[in-house]
């Protein structure tokens, strides 16, 4: 089984992306397109295996909102790491639709991109070919603090400072 990073660990991936449901085992974990999801929702709903949907960065989270309760996984495919639309998709899924399943970044994903992506709500990462997964884990640790509210830390730094949760010794 292919490997990915999930919850900051290297794990194997049981999902398979399928173009159609013909001949797909009932217990297989599958990823389908938003079109298949909408068209065959009744069938998909009755399956035993887990269900994921594959989004392009140009797809709108609004289009899958109605199905989120039945989804275990949303994959967002990055054609280029600097396509920031995927970052908004993840934040909207988490913060507006309160999706608690896995949100997976795929495509042009590597060590340098993990910090921002994870703060936007991605918790799984399929790295592009040739990237060492264990090495990439350090990408989560590059920064120990961040100013903004994010999915990972819903309270912005200024609120946490005020609550006295973190020190703030003045520097000379």
């Amino acid at each position, binding site marked *: 089984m292919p490997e990915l990073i999930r919850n900051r660990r290297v794990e194997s991936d049981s999902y398979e992306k399928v173009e159609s449901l013909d001949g797909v085992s009932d217990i297989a974990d599958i990823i389908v397109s938003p079109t298949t999801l909408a068209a065959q929702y009744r069938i998909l709903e009755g399956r035993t295996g887990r269900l994921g949907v594959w989004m392009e960065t140009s797809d709108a989270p609004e289009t899958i909102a109605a199905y989120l309760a039945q989804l275990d996984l949303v994959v967002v495919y990055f054609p280029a790491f600097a396509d*920031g639309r995927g970052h908004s998709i993840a934040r909207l899924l988490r913060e507006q639709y309160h999706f608690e399943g896995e949100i997976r970044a795929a495509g042009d994903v590597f060590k340098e991109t993990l910090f921002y992506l994870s703060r936007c709500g991605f918790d799984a990462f399929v790295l592009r070919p040739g990237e060492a997964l264990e090495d990439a884990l350090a990408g989560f640790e590059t920064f120990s603090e961040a100013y903004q509210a994010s999915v990972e830390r819903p309270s912005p730094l200024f609120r946490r400072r005020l609550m006295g949760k973190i020190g703030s010794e003045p520097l000379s």
Partner: protein
Amino acid sequence: MYQYDDIDQRIVEERVAQFRDQTRRFLAGQISEDDFRPLRLQNGLYIQRHAPMLRVAIPYGVLASRQLRKLAHIARTYDRGVGHFSTRQNIQFNWPQLEQVPNILAELATVQMHAIQTSGNCVRNTTTDHFAGVAADELIDPRVYCELIRQWSTFHPEFAFLPRKFKIAVNGAIADRAATWVHDIGLHAVRNESGDIGFRVIVGGGLGRTPMIGVVVREYLPWKHLLTYLEAILRVYNRYGRRDNKHKARIKILVKAMTPERFQREVETEWGRLKDGENTLVEEEVTRIEARMVRPDYAVLSPEQPAVLREALQADRAFRHWHERNVQAHKVPGYAAVVLSLKATGRAPGDATAEQMEAVAALADRYGFGEIRVSHEQNLILPDIPQADLPALYAQVKALGFATPNIGLLTNIISCPGGDFCSLANARSIPVAQAIQARFDDLARLEDIGALDLNISGCMNACGHHHVGHIGILGVDKHGAEYYQISIGGNQAPARLGKVIGPSLGSEAVPDAIEALISVYLDERLHAEERFVEVVERLGIEPFRESVYAQSEPEALYA
């Protein structure tokens, strides 16, 4: 200026470590050129004509003397002893070595500076009024909000990879000295009827290839909603801004394509979800930032003009000129703000040597409170000088070459680095600026011409703000030769875009063309107080156009 606490410091240091690692891996061939490009750009590092160019952030244009000394040290150690102050109130070094850039960033971090997001498709350095905290017409000190925006935008996870660069300007005074109508977002401090502070929010202005004046999307946004509202605007832009064509990727194009009304509805809908969320500002945070801003400990001085100043003004004509032009009123009695002109004839506009930077730092310590401002007009400002010290200060500024009394006049030229340095440029800007300065190197004549903004950009990216110059000059490339397109009637505040007067001219014809524009103005003005730009407004461009092209040799033109 804002003093970092331990967390601010740690974030900057972690950035240095990150970039050191990225640079090492790039040089070892472990990161490709394509991957490294966006990463280095978000640290202000371009690959330019001669060498990399490093753009260092000067948040909202405020520098402490020790920071300016550090910039001088960097210029001397890692560059050729010169820095270029930009129209974004930043400083650029044109000759650093890529291998040394992590060391430069580490040096900057020791004085609470960085190059974070000075380039790339992200939120750039927030700019403001260079007389913030000094100007008498101020409603609020915009620097507090600039710092809040700086922190909010630094490594914002959702908006690190926007369709295109994103520039925010904040103005806290009645007069707009921050060019807020030509920014992606412009914020004007306003008071509502109950006296509470908020912001008028302007979106979709910008210069560049498609210059536009912004539109107001909200007349009054209470200050505590500032960050959630910015998030709503940025999210709409991030999701819907064009990514297929970089020339159509700025937010102004989106606002126009959507129509301002629909764009505003989208923003308001998005804001409805974010409003009152965790990013809503609280009084304590504003107070905390206020408290970390180092404020001058002003002495109680007499509002009367000091005798030493009065005598110097009477005795010394050159001092009087300088005082009239380069010294600005201050809201605290007995003080003045002094503009150091980086626009001496023969010098590249905005350039300062390491020695000059150190000398300015010393003047700021000796006469002021150790603070220096960078203006978007590419000058330096000593914001808090006791008026009694002006004569002594003048002598030293003059010795430095920064006392050219041309602030607000024709030779106070805004110019980008142009084709001499920048790989985007279509033509050189600095030699054209120098030729014009040389042609008008006569103070009495400059004073007679009066208020005039002349801005030069070497390409349509418009770093030299040519659209909003009373006279704007744009370098264009015509089959490998440098030509210059001239526009007139632009204005910074209230923002108006200049109109092109006709075919482009060869570089040698530009000073003559400026001369022709000026002579029409001098002939046509109704009185000495009617400014150049007002005459253009009144008469239109036609008489100016006729005069410029009547005298041009046909071969100097490029239709």
